[in-house]
């Protein structure tokens, strides 16, 4: 483990984060957008964990943080998917460009 410097992890997670950002902007489909968000969340998790392991191996804050992030991501995904499917039922599409009027 010692041979891999921490920076590698950080670079990895940065790249992943910005790929997520790019996906968020490029794709117009709600589910793909959700997936991009998951990518970003994931990259953040890698950061937390790596820094925890490298810099503060005597504690577990980073670890717990990611743990809770995963849980929150799950909760978020479940609500988001419920919304997406509801939008789909209403508009028959989940392209953001076509879902103009979000009224009930």
């Amino acid at each position: 483990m010692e041979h891999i410097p921490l920076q590698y992890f950080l670079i990895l997670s940065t790249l992943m984060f910005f790929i997520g950002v790019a996906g968020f902007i490029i794709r117009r489909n709600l589910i793909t957008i959700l997936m991009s968000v998951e990518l970003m969340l994931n990259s953040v998790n890698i950061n937390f964990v790596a820094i925890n392991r490298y810099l503060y191996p005597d504690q577990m804050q980073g670890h717990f943080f990611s743990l809770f992030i995963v849980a929150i991501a799950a909760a978020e995904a479940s609500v988001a998917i419920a919304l997406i499917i509801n939008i789909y039922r209403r508009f028959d599409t989940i392209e953001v460009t076509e879902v103009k009027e979000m009224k009930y």
Partner: protein
Amino acid sequence: MVEKREIILGENEPYVINMGPQHPSTHGVLRFELSLKGETVFKVVPHCGYIHRGIEKMCESNTYQQIIHLTDRMDYLSAHPNNEAVSLCVEKALGIEVPERVKVIRTILSELGRLASHQLWWCAFGMDLGALTTFFYGLRDREKILDIFEESFGSRLLHSYICPGGLMNDVHPNFKQRIKDFIPYFRKKLPEYDQLLSGNVIFKERSRGIGMLSLEDAISYGVTGPSGRGSGFSCDIRKSQPYSAYDRVDFKEILFTEGDTYARYRVRIAEMWESMKILEQLVDQIPDGDYTAKMKPIIKLPEGEYYQSVETARGELGVYIVSKGDKFPVRVKFRTPNFSNLFAINHMAVGHKIADLVAISGSLDLVIPDIDR
């Protein structure tokens, strides 16, 4: 947004799926065109004719003896009553009285056929519901009956044994003994059917309240046989217009009034008990005598129209013969039980799941060539 509808179906549009003709649970080559909402069926269109063999047309160029072997092939699971129907109709037209022995033997055969048919139904029904072992137990017991058949008539399934005027040949000397052996055997095995399937909580959940058919609808659709009697339609021809030896045996007409799949199931199970009762009564009283009445080698029916119905394992089988005094009939029409039973399925299956449709069609005990002829 609008043009996407072509490929993306919303929740409220019907969605059509085919079940059959090659499908394990349509018992042959029936095809259901299902319109679904989600997994709920809201329309069933049965398409038949995948085994329409033109039997009625063939009858018009066959003599009455030859017709017999065609009737076997309609409802092949209970072949005897089919043969019996034509024979009775011809005998009625000719005004022939068959010997007592023939009557009793015909009745026994009908009941044995009913037992065999119900056993096969039981295993097929179990298979439909996914209980795979029923298949083997049902057929295991059925083999015993087939042995009786084979010993006397030389064939296991399609016998062409009952013919106008009586029987093709005399029964085998072992006939009586075999039946006597069979009844106690089956009395032991039948409770197992209950333990395995009827009592099972999964089975009950899957069949209770499924496929309701009210009495009025049953009559209006002409659903007869055990399926009709599950709705309380008292349609047993054996009781209402007794033929052969049915007027002298004591049996109950099984009636359940719930009208669901479970009721139809129970009617058949109860009928098996009744059939065994009938067999027990008759097996010792087979009178001696001829196995056939005196018949001319070529039968010519007097001009007229004749109708005869019998109770097969599936319901009322009617034979309608129009004759012009020839050796060939002008028109033979078979009012087959399954034909009417099948078309009630749309009424019964609406609002249920696909799996329930399978259960319902299983509980109707469909034999497809009987529908298509």
